[in-house]
C-alpha cells in the first residue's frame, strides 16, 4: 500500500575492494534500487554505530540491472569517520541503505562532455555508460585528479574519449579540468559535471560563455536525504515560478541542476 519509490533495505555486500589508497568500490545487492535508479542519483548509507546518526550520501556509480546490483565508489575519511567504519565491512556483511534518492542527470542524444573532479568522478561513470548503452555514443570525458593513481581512469576509457588533468601534472594536462578543456579545445552540445564547488563554478562560466546547457551535481551536508530537514538547500537564481520558493533542496530537487538555475 505504501510503495515508496525509495527502498530502505539491509543490502548484502557482494564485493568490496580498494581502488586506491583511500577510495573503495562496493557492490551491493539492491534489486529494487538497481531497477529504479538512473545516473546521478544517490543512496543514503547508514553507519551501524548508533552514535553516527546522519546518512552518508553516496552517488550510484554503476547500475547492474540484470543482476540487481549497484556499485558505490567512495572516499574513506580519516579517524573516527563513518566511511572508515563502512570501509571495514566485508563481503557477505550487510549495510543499511536508502535509495535511489534525488533526480539524476537528464539524458539526451546530444554530443556530451562529462566532467568529473576527484570523488565527483564515479557518478559520471554511470552516466557515460548509460549514454553509451542507450545512444551507442562515446562521450568526451574530462577527469580531474590530484595526481597519479586516480581512480576509474581505465573504466572510462572503454567507452569514452578520455582527457585527464592532474594538479601536479603527473599525467595529462597540468592544472584543472578547465585547463584540459581549454588545452584541447574540447566541445560538446551538453555538459555534465560533478566535483568540488570551485570546479562547478568554472563550469557555470564556461556553459554561459559557450551558451550550452550544463547539468551539475551539487554536494551538501545532508540531514535526511529525503527532503524533510532543509539542511541542504541552495539559492535559486530566480524564485520558482509556481511555488514562489527561492531555495531548493539538493537532496530532492537535485542533486543535479542546470547551472543557470542555482546560485553557485
Amino acid at each position, binding site marked *: *500500500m*505504501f510503495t*515508496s*519509490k*525509495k527502498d*530502505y533495505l539491509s543490502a548484502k555486500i557482494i564485493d568490496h575492494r580498494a581502488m586506491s589508497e583511500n577510495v573503495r568500490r562496493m557492490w551491493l545487492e539492491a534489486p529494487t534500487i538497481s531497477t529504479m535508479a538512473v545516473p546521478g542519483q544517490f543512496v543514503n548509507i*547508514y553507519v551501524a554505530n*548508533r*552514535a*553516527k*546518526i*546522519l*546518512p552518508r550520501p553516496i552517488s550510484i556509480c554503476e547500475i547492474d540491472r540484470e543482476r540487481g546490483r549497484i556499485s558505490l565508489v567512495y572516499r574513506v575519511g580519516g579517524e573516527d569517520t*563513518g566511511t572508515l567504519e563502512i570501509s571495514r565491512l566485508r563481503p557477505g556483511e550487510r549495510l*543499511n541503505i*536508502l535509495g535511489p534518492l534525488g533526480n539524476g542527470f537528464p539524458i539526451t542524444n546530444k554530443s556530451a562532455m562529462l566532467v568529473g573532479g576527484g570523488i565527483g568522478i564515479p557518478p559520471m561513470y554511470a552516466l557515460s555508460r548509460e549514454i553509451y548503452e542507450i545512444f551507442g555514443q562515446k562521450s568526451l570525458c574530462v577527469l580531474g585528479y590530484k595526481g597519479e593513481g586516480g581512480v576509474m581512469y581505465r573504466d572510462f576509457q572503454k567507452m569514452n574519449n578520455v582527457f585527464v588533468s592532474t594538479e601536479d601534472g603527473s599525467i595529462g594536462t597540468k592544472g584543472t579540468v578547465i585547463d584540459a578543456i581549454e588545452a584541447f579545445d574540447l566541445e560538446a552540445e551538453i555538459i555534465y559535471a560533478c566535483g568540488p564547488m570551485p570546479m562547478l563554478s568554472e563550469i557555470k562560466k564556461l556553459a554561459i560563455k559557450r551558451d550550452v546547457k550544463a547539468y551539475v551535481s551539487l554536494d*551538501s*551536508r*545532508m*540531514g*535526511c536525504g*529525503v*527532503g*524533510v*530537514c*532543509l*539542511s*541542504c*538547500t*541552495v539559492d535559486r537564481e530566480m524564485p520558482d515560478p509556481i*511555488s*514562489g*520558493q*527561492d*531555495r531548493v533542496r539538493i537532496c*530532492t530537487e537535485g542533486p543535479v541542476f542546470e547551472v543557470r538555475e542555482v546560485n553557485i
Partner: protein
Amino acid sequence: MNMNVSIAGIDWKNPVTVASGTFGSGKEYSDFFDLSLLGAVTTKGVSFSPWKGNPTPRIAETCGGVINSIGLQNPGVEYFLKQDLPFLAGYNTNVIVNICGHTVPEYVEVARCLSEEEDVDYLELNVSCPNVSEGGIAFGTDEQKLKEVIADVKRVSKKPLIVKLSPNVTDIVRMAQIAESEGADALSMVNTFMAAKIDVDSRSFILANKTGGLSGPAIHPIVVRMVYETARVVNIPIIAMGGVMSGRDAIEFILAGATAVAVGTASFRYPKAARQVIEEIREYMFRYNVDDIRQLIGQVRD
C-alpha cells in the same frame, strides 16, 4: 491494550508524534508509512511571512548527536495553509502546527491565522526563535519575554496551546511553571541545546552559522531529568522529545512523567523510526502486561 492518551481534551490513538522540523510537512515520510498511525503529526516551524533560514552548511554530526542551524526556513503561513495543511488533513491523526516569530506581534499574527483552521488541532509555540527586538536572544530563555509571548498568543489562539521549552536555561521547572500559569495547555520538552562543532583541519566551524542546536541521543539523559523534575510540579501534560531512537527511550520519558513523546532526529537515520517507536512501545506493554499506557506515566519508582 490501550495506547490512547488525551492532551488538552483531544484524544491521541497513541502517545507518539514527530518533532517539529524533522518531518517536513509530512508528505515525504508518507511514502514510508501511513501517517494515520501516528498520535499526531507536528509540522515544521511556520512563520507569518516566509523566512530564508541560515546559510549552508546547516547540519553537522557529533557523537550521538546532530547540530542543526536550519534557521526556520519556511515559506510562511499562507503557503502552509494552501500546500501543506490540506495534505495532512487527509490523514486520521492530530495536527500540531509549530509556530515561530521574530517579534511578539509576528507570533500573534501566525497564531491568529492558524486558529481559524478546522484542520489544525494544536499550536506549538516555538520560543527558541531569535527575538529580533532583543538582539537575537531567544524568547524561551528570558522569563519576562516568555510570559509575554505566551500571554499574547494565548489571547488570540482558539486552539490548545503547547509551549515548547528551551533547555538552555538554569531552571526549566520555573519556565514550565511560567508557561502553565500563562495558560499553556501542554508543554513540549525540549528544543535543542546550543552547540558548535569545529573542523580542526580547516579551523572553521562546520556550520555556516557557527552555532546550532544539538539533538539526538546525546541529549536524552539531560531531557529525562528535565521531564522528571517538571512533571512533578506542573499539572499540564508534557510531550517529551530529545533523542528518542527506540521504544525504550520513549518509555523512559513516559516513566519520567511525559504523556507523549516526539521522534525527531531518529527519522533521519531510519525513515520509519516513528512507526517503529510505536511498535516497540506496544511490545513493551505486551511483555510487561501493561494494558493501559497511562499506567506508565510518571511511574518511575521514587
